[in-house]
C-alpha cells in the first residue's frame, strides 16, 4: 500500500519532515517558514555534554522541538510515541500506514544503508517519513535525499532502535487533527518572539548570543589546555556541527534570513527585509569562520591562523547576531 505523499528535499531533516507532513494535510508552508515558526534557530555550546568525547556545539534547538512547536502554534493535534519493543513499534507503524497516515520518525544514521559511508557517524536524531509499504519494502521520504528511498523491515528496525547518545527508541509521530482556520501570521510572530527571547535572554553563559561569546572565550584557551592536536579536533567538531547534514549552522542563518524575507511580505512589514539582509551577513560571517578554521586543518602543524583570531571572529558574529535579535524581539502583529 502506498500513500499519495509528495516528497520534497530540504536543507534540514526535521524542517523537511514537518513541511512535507503539513503539505500532505493541505497546509503549504515552505521550509524556511517551518523553521521560523518552529523557532529552530539557536546556539549552544555545552562543554559537559559530549559527542565523540568532545563538547557539543549546536546551532539549533533540540531534535523534535521544531515539529512540536510548529504544530502547537498552528493548533494542529499530533500523537507521538516511543517504544521498548521493536516488533510492537513496527506493528503500530503498519496500522498507521494501513489507515493511510504518513508517519514521521526519529532514526540513527549509522546503519542507514542509502547514506554515503562518510556520513554514517553515530548520530541519532535524524528524521524521515514512512509513507507506504510495497513488496516488503517500506517507502521512505528522507528530506536529505533527492529521491524516494526504501528500507526493509529489518533495516528500518535497526535504524529506529540505534544505540549511542540520545537513542531514538522507535520514536514516531503523526498528525491526528487539523483545524479549519489556521492563523499563520500570529504563529510567525510567536516564533520570532521565542527565538529572540532565547537568543538574548537565557541567563546561562552557554546559550544564545552569550553562548557564542562563551565558545570564543574557551577557544582562546584550547591550544594551551588540550595541546595542538586535541585543539584541532575540537575545532573540527565545531565546523562539522556547523556544516554537516542535519546540523548546518551557517545554513540555518540563511534559512532564517529567507524566513524573515517571506514574513516581511506576508505580514506587510517592510523593515523585516532589512533585518533579513543583516541575517544573511551573519551567515556569511559564519562561512568565513569555517574557511579560516579549515585552513587550520590543512596545515595542521604550521597554521598561521591563531585561535585568538578565530575567537575574534566569533565575537564579531555575536555582536551582529545580537543586533539582529534586538530588532526582532519586540515584533508584534500590529
Amino acid at each position, binding site marked *: 500500500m502506498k500513500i499519495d505523499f509528495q516528497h520534497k528535499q530540504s536543507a534540514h531533516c526535521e524542517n523537511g519532515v514537518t513541511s512535507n507532513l503539513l503539505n500532505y494535510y493541505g497546509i503549504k508552508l515552505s521550509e524556511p517558514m517551518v523553521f521560523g515558526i518552529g523557532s529552530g534557530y539557536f546556539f549552544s555550546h555545552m562543554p559537559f555534554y559530549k559527542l*565523540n568525547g568532545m563538547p557539543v556545539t549546536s546551532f539549533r534547538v533540540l531534535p523534535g522541538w521544531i515539529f512540536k512547536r510548529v504544530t502547537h502554534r498552528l493548533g494542529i493535534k499530533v500523537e507521538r510515541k516511543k517504544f521498548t519493543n521493536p516488533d510492537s513499534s513496527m506493528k503500530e507503524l503498519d496500522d498507521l500506514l494501513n489507515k493511510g497516515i504518513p508517519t514521521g520518525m526519529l532514526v540513527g544514521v549509522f546503519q542507514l544503508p542509502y547514506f554515503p*559511508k562518510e556520513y554514517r557517524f553515530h548520530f541519532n536524531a535524524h528524521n524521515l517519513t514512512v509513507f507506504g509499504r510495497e513488496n516488503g519494502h517500506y517507502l521512505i521520504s528522507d528530506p536529505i535525499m533527492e529521491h524516494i528511498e526504501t528500507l526493509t523491515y529489518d533495516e528500518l528496525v535497526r535504524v529506529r532502535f540505534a544505540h549511542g547518545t540520545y537513542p531514538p527508541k522507535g520514536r514516531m509521530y503523526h498528525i491526528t487533527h487539523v483545524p479549519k482556520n489556521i492563523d499563520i501570521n500570529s504563529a510567525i510572530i510567536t516564533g520570532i518572539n521565542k527565538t529572540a527571547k532565547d537568543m538574548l535572554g537565557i541567563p546561562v553563559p552557554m546559550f544564545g548570543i552569550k553562548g557564542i561569546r562563551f565558545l570564543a572565550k574557551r577557544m582562546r584557551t584550547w591550544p594551551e589546555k588540550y595541546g595542538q592536536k586535541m585543539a584541532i579536533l575540537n575545532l573540527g567538531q565545531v565546523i562539522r556541527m556547523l556544516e554537516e547534514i542535519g546540523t548546518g549552522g551557517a545554513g540555518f542563518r*540563511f534559512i532564517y534570513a529567507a524566513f524573515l524575507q517571506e514574513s516581511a511580505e506576508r505580514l506587510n512589514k517592510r523593515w523585516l527585509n532589512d533585518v533579513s539582509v543583516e541575517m544573511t551577513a551573519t551567515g556569511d560571517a559564519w562561512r568565513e569562520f*569555517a574557511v579560516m578554521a579549515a585552513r587550520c586543518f590543512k596545515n595542521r602543524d604550521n597554521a598561521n591562523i591563531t585561535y585568538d583570531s578565530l575567537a575574534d571572529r566569533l565575537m564579531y558574529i555575536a555582536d551582529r547576531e545580537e543586533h539582529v535579535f534586538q530588532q526582532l524581539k519586540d515584533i508584534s502583529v500590529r
Partner: protein
Amino acid sequence: MKIDEVPQDKGYLVKGRISDLSYAVGNDGKYISRQSQGWAPKNEAMSLAWDVVYERAENARNLVLAGILSPVAFYMELNIMDVHILSSYTGISKWKVKRHLKMKNFLKMKPEVLSRYAEAFKMAPCELSDVNKIREVKIGHEN
C-alpha cells in the same frame, strides 16, 4: 551567500543520490534554494574526523597483531564505537566489554557471546575471530 556562490566542491556528496540544499540570495534579492555538491571547508572537517577514526583503528590493529588487544577492540574502533555504544548494541555490560577488549579474555570467550559481538559489527562470528582478516582490512578513504 549569493546564488552563484553556492559551493560545488566535490567531496563526500554524490550527485543524483545525495546533495545539500542551500538557501541563497538570487539576482533579484529574493531567497531561492539550490543544490550543492559539497563545500571544501566541510570536506576538510569530515576528513579530519575520519583520519582520527582511521588512526585509532590502525593503532588497535597493531595491538591486536601483537596479541595484546582482541579483534573486538579493532572492530569497535573501525565502527566508531566506544565501550558504551558497543555495550548497548550487544547488551553485554560495560565492564565485561572492557575485559573482552583484551586478547587473553577474548580467547576464553563463549561462542554465544562472540556471536553477539559479530552481530553488532554485522559480520559472521568466524570472521570476527580471524586475526588474519584484520591484517588485510583496508583502512582509509575510499576515494
